[in-house]
């Protein structure tokens, strides 16, 4: 008696408390089982107040819990069918489980819309809660907050340190896992690149200058960091991803200085000197730090060779890919007549450019 009662009660009473949890269902089912004689008009009250009664069957008959959740259309169809069944069974005059279900359904007829709405409401609440929890978990910028906890003096000290190679490589060197400095350096590099591209008359057909600059710089920083982290993982080096990002980011300081100078003073030899000296210093620093954290000659060689190659080649690439004016300007200075301004920097007037170049040339000659 209890089991079919529980099943029958669970079937229709479940639609009110279905989302409330299985305990409610069990209690409603047990409540239903005891109140067989209740009339149709009191079904909803029972279904709502039943959870107060405890101790029903612990087994919930899942196959009888149909999922006519919020859809009044489905309820309508079922109700229609049940009404037919009820008419047939009424003729028998037998109060079976079906009649009770019909009674309940008929009793809920007036409230069907409200039930549907309630269930829809509950679904919405659950969905909203889950979405907001997921959002606050993943899109929380507070995850990044500890990496931005720096003072200006620290940033300045680290910028200067990035050009000074360490001597002690037998002891793992400390790397600050900070992201503010590297991020600002990447943006500065983007700005300098933009300046270089504009002055060298670079025409980008597919896309914008800004997109290319941002893509290049961020792609280098994130991509090479990830690749080096992967290599470090293979070579068993003691370095985390944030530290790698930070190390490479600060290494871009040398790039910024070099490009800032050589985008304005167009001289091949000057660029090569800067490339070797400034680029070399920052590469040596990064290499020394990595060596201090790796064990084994082969691993050290792999890691440091890759990093040095990528770092220096990136500087070379930045200079030559976005800076097509070098030959034009040198020709301009060599020849007595100024050729027409086809390949001259289109926006800095020739005067200031020529002044800068002449000065640099004069200094080089006197040295």
């Amino acid at each position, binding site marked *: 008696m209890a089991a079919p009662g529980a099943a029958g009660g669970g079937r229709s009473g479940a639609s009110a408390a279905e989302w409330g949890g299985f305990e409610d269902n069990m209690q409603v089912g047990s409540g239903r089982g005891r109140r067989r004689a209740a009339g149709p008009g009191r079904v909803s009250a029972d279904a709502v107040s039943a959870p107060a009664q405890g101790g029903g069957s612990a087994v919930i008959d899942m196959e009888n819990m149909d999922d006519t959740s919020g859809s009044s259309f489905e309820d309508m169809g079922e109700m229609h069918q049940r009404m037919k069944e009820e008419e047939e069974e009424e003729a028998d005059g037998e109060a079976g489980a079906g009649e009770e279900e019909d009674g309940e359904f008929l009793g809920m007829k007036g409230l069907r819309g409200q039930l549907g709405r309630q269930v829809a409401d509950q679904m919405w609440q659950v969905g909203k809660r889950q979405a907001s929890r997921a959002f606050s978990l993943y899109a929380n910028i507070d995850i990044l907050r500890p990496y931005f906890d720096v003072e200006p003096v620290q940033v300045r000290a680290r910028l200067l340190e990035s050009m000074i190679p360490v001597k002690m490589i037998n002891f793992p060197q400390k790397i600050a896992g900070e992201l503010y400095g590297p991020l*600002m350096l990447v943006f500065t590099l983007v700005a300098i690149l933009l300046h270089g591209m504009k002055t060298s008359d670079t025409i980008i057909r597919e896309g914008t200058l*800004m997109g290319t600059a941002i893509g290049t710089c961020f792609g280098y920083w994130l991509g090479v960091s990830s690749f080096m982290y992967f290599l470090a993982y293979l070579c068993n080096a003691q370095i985390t991803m944030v530290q790698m990002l930070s190390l490479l980011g600060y290494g871009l300081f040398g790039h910024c200085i070099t490009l800032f100078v050589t985008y304005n003073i167009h001289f091949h030899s000057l660029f090569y000197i800067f490339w070797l000296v400034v680029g070399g210093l920052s590469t040596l620093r990064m290499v020394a730090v990595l060596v201090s954290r790796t064990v084994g000659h082969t691993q050290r060689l792999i890691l440091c060779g890759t990093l040095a190659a990528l770092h220096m080649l990136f500087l070379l690439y930045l200079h030559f890919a976005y800076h097509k004016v070098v030959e034009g300007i040198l020709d301009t200075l060599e020849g007595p007549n100024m050729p027409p301004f086809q390949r001259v920097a*289109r*926006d800095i007037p020739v005067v200031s450019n020529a002044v800068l170049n002449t000065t640099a040339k004069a200094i080089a000659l006197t040295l």
Partner: protein
Amino acid sequence: FPGLADVSIAQDIPVEGEITVPVGSQSPDEDYSTLDEPVKDTIMRDLKAVGKKFVHVMYPRKSSALLRDWDLWGPLVLCVSLALMLQGGSADSKDDGGPQFAEVFVIIWFGAVVITLNSKLLGGTISFFQSLCVLGYCVLPLTVAMLVCRLVLLAGAGTVSFIIRLIVVGAMFGWSTLASTAFLADSQPPNRKALVVYPIFLFYFVISWMILTFTPQ
């Protein structure tokens, strides 16, 4: 105060009065009144708010009006007008006319978002949209500089015009940076102001550079 020690009410005096609290019927009326008012009033009110903020930017004082009632109309208008004026300044104006507009738009909004995130991560107390609002409004001096540059370029594109443009753009760049710093740096812990000012400096520097290197074809 001995006189106030005894403030009890005598038991035999009945206390009487009105319990009903007059319901403030003003708020629903206000809602209806802003719906029913003529469109001109709504637009004028918004325009006046935007205009007041422009004045705040041009004469930066430490007032919180810009921060309290933030709106993004002003930044949108400034951004669009700057992007429109910066069009057509490339070698092949047929190819680069489109991306120029998108470039300026993206630079301004993406840059403003990055600066806001940065200031929030550094421990700032200002909200996201307030910061966007301030940064957008402080583009006003640079828009004025762009207008002046275009007028100067109408006269000719020589050394003198370059020097004039350099001075004007430089001055406006400094004004923009100072104005936005006056609003934003207050919301930071005092020893980290430089960390917040640098990205703002870079942001306005890029915009100024785009304005200075603009030559119409």
